[in-house]
Every structure is written in structure tokens, then in C-alpha cells.
């Protein structure tokens, strides 16, 4: 089984260092009120984690699909934007 990290390693990115394009509006909603943390399961790039009762998000490998934004329909706790123009994933094939 190929790990998601190995898959992402094949992709080309222009990472906008220290300027994540996705932000969590209120982490306490994820940590305390959200029962499912569906983002951690459904994100195809594995950007989201939930460990020791704490939500985590690293957007470097983001494929810009919008899944985390759409799947968080109950709490609407994802502040989702495209990366700054020219940054983010650069599909070679698409």
C-alpha cells in the first residue's frame, strides 16, 4: 500500500511558507464540540489530524479540492481560501 505521503511526494507544489490558505476558525469547536472530525478522514491529502484531543492542520500537501470545507457542514468551522495566486498545487497532468 502506497502511503498518502508517498503519493504527494510525486506532486509539484509552490508552498506559500507561513501563509496557510486554510484556517480553522475556532479550534475549540473541533476539539470539544465536533463528534466526528470528518476532515481528518476524508481529506485526500491527509492534511488534517486529531491527536490527543487536538485538531491539527498542515496545508502544504493540499490538493485544493475543497473537501474539508464541504464536509464540515455542521460546524462550518473551516475558513477556506485558495492559496495566493501562483502558489499551491501545480498539476503536471491534472
Amino acid at each position, binding site marked *: 500500500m502506497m502511503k498518502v505521503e508517498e503519493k504527494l511526494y*510525486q506532486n509539484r507544489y509552490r508552498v506559500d511558507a507561513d501563509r496557510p490558505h486554510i484556517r480553522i476558525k475556532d479550534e475549540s469547536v473541533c476539539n470539544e464540540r465536533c463528534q466526528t472530525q470528518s476532515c481528518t478522514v476524508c481529506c485526500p491529502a491527509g492534511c488534517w489530524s486529531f491527536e490527543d484531543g487536538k485538531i491539527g492542520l498542515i496545508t502544504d500537501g493540499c490538493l485544493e479540492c475543497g473537501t474539508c470545507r464541504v*464536509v464540515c457542514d455542521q460546524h462550518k468551522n473551516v475558513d*477556506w481560501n*485558495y492559496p495566493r495566486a501562483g502558489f499551491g498545487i501545480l498539476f503536471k*497532468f491534472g
Partner: protein
Amino acid sequence: MTQQAKEKFDVIVVGAGPAGNAAAYTLAKAGKKVLQLERGEYPGSKNVQGAILYANALEKIIPDFRDSAPLERHVVEQRMWLMEKDSHLGTHFRSDQYNQQPGNRYSIIRARFDKWFSDQVQKAGALVVCEMTVTELLRDGSGRVIGVNVDRENGQIYADAVVLADGVNSLVASRAGLRQDIKPGAVALAVKEVIFLPKDTIEARFNLKGSEGVVIEMLGAITEGMVGTGFLYTNKDSVSVGIGCMLSDMKAQRTTPAELLEKLKAHPSVAPLIAGGETREYAAHLIPEGGYDALPPQLYGDGWLLVGDSAGFVNAVHREGSNLAMTSGRLAAETLIELSAAGQPASAANLARYKQKLDDSFVMKDLKKYRKVPETLDRQRQFVSDYPALFNQAAYNFFSVDGRDKQSKEKEIIGAFRERRSLLGLLGDAYRLWRATR
């Protein structure tokens, strides 16, 4: 940008995918002053598709596209596989007629194809600006859309009309309140790998010569009970392998899409086809598969039109999207060209003509025809789970020679169907399938 900020365009097209390119090209060809804005480094760098190109929709825009477009393979064979865990029952349709010019369907690589399409748009006279993200729509006091704001200082750009081709997430349209935001039950999440193999190996494995290609669509155990499909398309020296399921199902079943794709790649019917290949890209994309009932209530308004994925134009049953995108982009452009020729403004009342054109085309006709499919599949999971399994078991039973008599086998097969679905259930399913697709 300051110079552009002072200019006013006839039309601003947001996004350089198939819908946006179709609109921008058609408008520019008619002599309109068009500005097309794309957030990616180059057109295609943010775009994802399977990808199969349906020639007809593009022919209507660029009749001689075959002379210069980067096409991978022309499709001569369509395979439909009902999948069980360790088997598949398939139908193959292969026709030498598909070797006649002009070709009907082609596999494409979107990053290359979109770049080519954008070149044609620019040659037609449109101004295409990449690495520029539209952040919001500009409106006047009456609410009429009069331009866009981009992520630059003094980023206001004005136009008589804005064509929103900004894709499935359509942040611009949603944030402006022109459409409701998408819901997990109305989108499929698809993941895909492009796996490279020598050209000869592809031709030997798929029984192809020259630029012939194969399409395989898969339904059944691979989606683990979720509504969705898998696919494998042959490109020149690579294959595209992917799987997509409704996001609401992935959420409910807590399925990790990357793992689902790994399982598909390891399926005994798929693994030998991609063995030894090298994955060079992994992509994910949402597909608006909610169908007719999930369309935005308004597809146009004062100064704006929605086209392509931003409008939800996907026929999930037939795996068609880019052709609906290109057609809707073209129809939006033609509407604006006609209005301009008649000296009429792009008001909501006048743009009703766009909706009329959509209604008269296959875009709306097909969406209406399959209106009940998303709901039927969502409620009647037997179509994606029980039936593929039953048909595979029946085939296994029927084709295995094991000393048992044929009548007993027939009884077993019929018994399995009746046990799983009951006689009434089988009849009901036939009716439901007919009603959903009539």
C-alpha cells in the same frame, strides 16, 4: 494592473477550465473585448479531470481542434465492469468505427489540454491573465454585477457582464450569494493517480495499436457500499486510475480516499493492468454530482452567468462533465453576443435567453432525464452493492465446472437473487431503475 483597472471590458470570464475557455474563445472570436482571469500559474495547473474529452462539444467551438490539440488516445473500446472483491463481470464494446475520422472521444491530460485551449483563446484575441485570483464581485447600488475585485491593490476591474467559470467550489458565486454552497450529498470526491508505463506495454495489455485507447468504468465492491465508481483510462504512455464516491457517504462510512484508491489499484482485475507502472501524480477533485435537483436556483442574473461545474452541470450517470461545461460556456457567450448585437444590456430579464438555450440543449435535457438517479442510488444501495455481488456470484457459479448439474446451478443462482432481494424487491428494483432513468 493599474492600466487594466481603468479599462472596461465587455466580459470578464472567471476561470480557465473548459467552461471558461469555451466562453472566452466564443466571445473573443465574435470580437468582444474579453478579460479571462485564472488563479493558477498556467491554465490547467489547478484543474483535474479523469480525463475523457467528448469531441462534439469542442467541435462546435473549434471545428478543427484535432489538428493541434494535445490528444492522448482516441477511444475505441468501452468496458463496464461490475466488481466483486476478487472478480469482475464486464461488458466490452469495441468498434472499428471509432477508428474512422473524425474521432468521437479522446483521453486527454488536462494540464496540457487546458494550456492548448487557452492558447486558442489568446489567439482569438482575449486577454488572459494567470496568477490572479478573483476575490469578489463588484456590484452597483441596484445589485447588478459590474465587475470583479482581484487579489491586487486597486484590484477593481469592470465589465458589462461576468461569466463565472470558477469551478465546483465556486467561492466567488457562493460568497456573493448567487448560489447556495455545495453540500456533501451533492458532490463526489474523486482521487486519481497518473501511472506511467511504456507505450508498448499499454498497447499489449489493452489490446491496442497506434493511438487507440480504452475506457474502463467500474461499479460495485470497490466503493464499499458507497455510491460511486472507479475508472481506468489509457493515455499515450500512462494510465489514469481513479475512484470517486459521494462525499456524504465517505463522511458517513469514514473512508479515507487515498486508501480506497490503493485498494482499487490492488484489485486482482486492476493490478495486472498497472503492474510495474510509476505513479507520477496524485490528484483529488470534487465533482458536482447532485444532478438537476442540486442545481443553483438561479443560473444567471443582472450582469452574471454561471457555467460549467460552478453551475453544477455534470451528468454523473454517463460520466460527462467537460462537454456540459464547454457547451454551457459557449451558450453563455452566444447569449451575450446576441444581446450585444441587439444593443440590449446583460440584465437578468435578457439573460433568461441563456437558460432557454440550456433547456433546449442536451445539458438540461440529460440532467432532467436522470433527475431521480442521485436520490434513487442514495436510498437504494442494492444497485451499488447487492447487484454487482449477485451478478459476479452468478457468473462464478455458472462458469465453474464442478460436477454439479446445470439445473441445480440455475436454481442456486435464482435462489440467491430471491434471497437477497425477494421477488417483489427484484420487480421493485427494475421499476425503480426504469423510473430513475426514463
